[in-house]
């Protein structure tokens, strides 16, 4: 794998991810996840098949489009292609708070990527792209492919909540890392599944959902005591 892509995959990338728990914080508040490692692992597995799959498919699609629909020279309808993808992501993100979080993280990633991996493709994304769209374009700019974009999206979708669970619950980081590693084959399968959507029309993207997490995300935004932004 290219070193540039490892930078994008690093949780220390200054793109704001540290303040987001990937839904773990509201799940802990609601008593759905606690110190029981099995519950945390179940949460990560659920996350892999919902938010992970969706983010990965979007990132793969955006990475593919970035290779074919850059604005200079502008192919006919380039803006419409990106607007359509943005709309499809909105439609698959029913909780307003999740949309807001996705766009805030997309903006932060765009800020880093523009400096680190300059590319004309960012110009078509507006100022607040959804995070997986920004990720897909950044991976293309860093020399990566749609499967690699999907891979980075899946990794982020489970490493964020895993790290947040350690910080919130004081879990044994060695035990959690082992549980995380045991999910790797399943995560690879999700990456392969997501990659299939790269060259399909944007409206064919998968639409997995976790309604309870959507509701918790809304409740979290109104909570008085929050350690994480989401």
């Amino acid at each position, binding site marked *: 794998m290219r070193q540039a892509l490892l930078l994008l995959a690093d949780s*220390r*990338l*200054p*793109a*704001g*991810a*540290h*303040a*987001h*728990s990937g839904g773990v914080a509201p799940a802990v508040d609601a008593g759905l996840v606690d110190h029981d490692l099995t519950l945390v692992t179940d949460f990560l597995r659920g996350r892999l098949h919902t938010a992970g799959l969706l983010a990965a498919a979007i990132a793969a699609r955006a990475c593919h489009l970035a290779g074919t629909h850059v604005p200079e020279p502008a192919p006919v309808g380039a803006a419409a292609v*990106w*607007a359509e993808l*943005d709309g499809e992501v909105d439609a698959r993100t029913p909780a*307003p*708070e999740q*949309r*807001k979080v996705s*766009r*805030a993280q997309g*903006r*932060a990633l*765009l*800020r*880093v*990527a*523009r*400096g*680190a991996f*300059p590319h004309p493709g960012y110009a078509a*994304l*507006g*100022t*607040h*792209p959804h995070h997986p769209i920004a990720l897909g374009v950044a991976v293309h700019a860093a020399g990566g492919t749609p499967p690699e974009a999907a891979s980075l999206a899946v990794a982020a979708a489970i490493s964020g909540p895993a790290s*947040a669970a350690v*910080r*919130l619950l004081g879990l044994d980081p060695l035990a959690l890392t082992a549980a995380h590693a045991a999910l790797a084959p399943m995560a690879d399968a999700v990456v392969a599944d997501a990659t299939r959507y790269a060259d399909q029309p944007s409206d064919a993207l998968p639409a997995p959902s976790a309604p309870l997490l959507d509701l918790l995300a809304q409740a979290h*935004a109104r909570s*008085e*005591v*929050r*350690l*994480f*932004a989401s």
Partner: protein
Amino acid sequence: MLPDAHAQAHAAGEPHDHDVFEQHAPLTGEAAPRTAGRAFRVGVGGPVGSGKTALVAALCRTLGPEMQLGVVTNDIYTTEDADFLRRSGVLAPERIAAVETGCCPHTAVRDDIAANLDAVEGLEESFAPLELVLVESGGDNLTMTFSRGLVDVQLFVLDVSGGDKVPRKGGPGVTGSDLLVINKTDLAPLVGADLGVMDRDAAAVRRGKPVVFQSLREDPSASTVAEWIRDARKAWLEG
């Protein structure tokens, strides 16, 4: 969303959506030009309970009437500090933005400043031309320091009741901050803190950088710190 309502939602940290075609300041991906169209940014850091928020409130009272001011707070797990400032009435509530820090108050102002940059730029957009932004860190420990990518100068706030040995212990905040503020000097006799020891030790580890002793009870306007910020901003504007 209409631009005004949108700016208010930004400033209040309220949930709202961003349309892709909405007009926002472009992201350059480069450090902002030194002074072009942006505010002078001052970081206020220091341990929990040392009086950072009270100092920020005092600075708002003193500097608010003379310059266009905004405040970004980094609370550890609530919007307590932002709420305190809003309630205290020292600044219009929409000029105070709160950032959440994911269990790591340090990270948000030092390693990954993305959310803070967004908050600062949001205020600069909404209240242009903004002249001064105070960025208050979440209370942390002596290893606290701000990224130079986020603030132009930084204050580190200690209080005498934390013990007169603290300056000697050093740490990036004590040794590297542009101004060390030793707060609550009125408590020194009550907690047995020797201000002379703190002064001597601070001078030794800070290699001549300034130290201010203050008591907001005795000087609610924080006049010495406010004067230091005026001078620092003037020097920054002159490049």
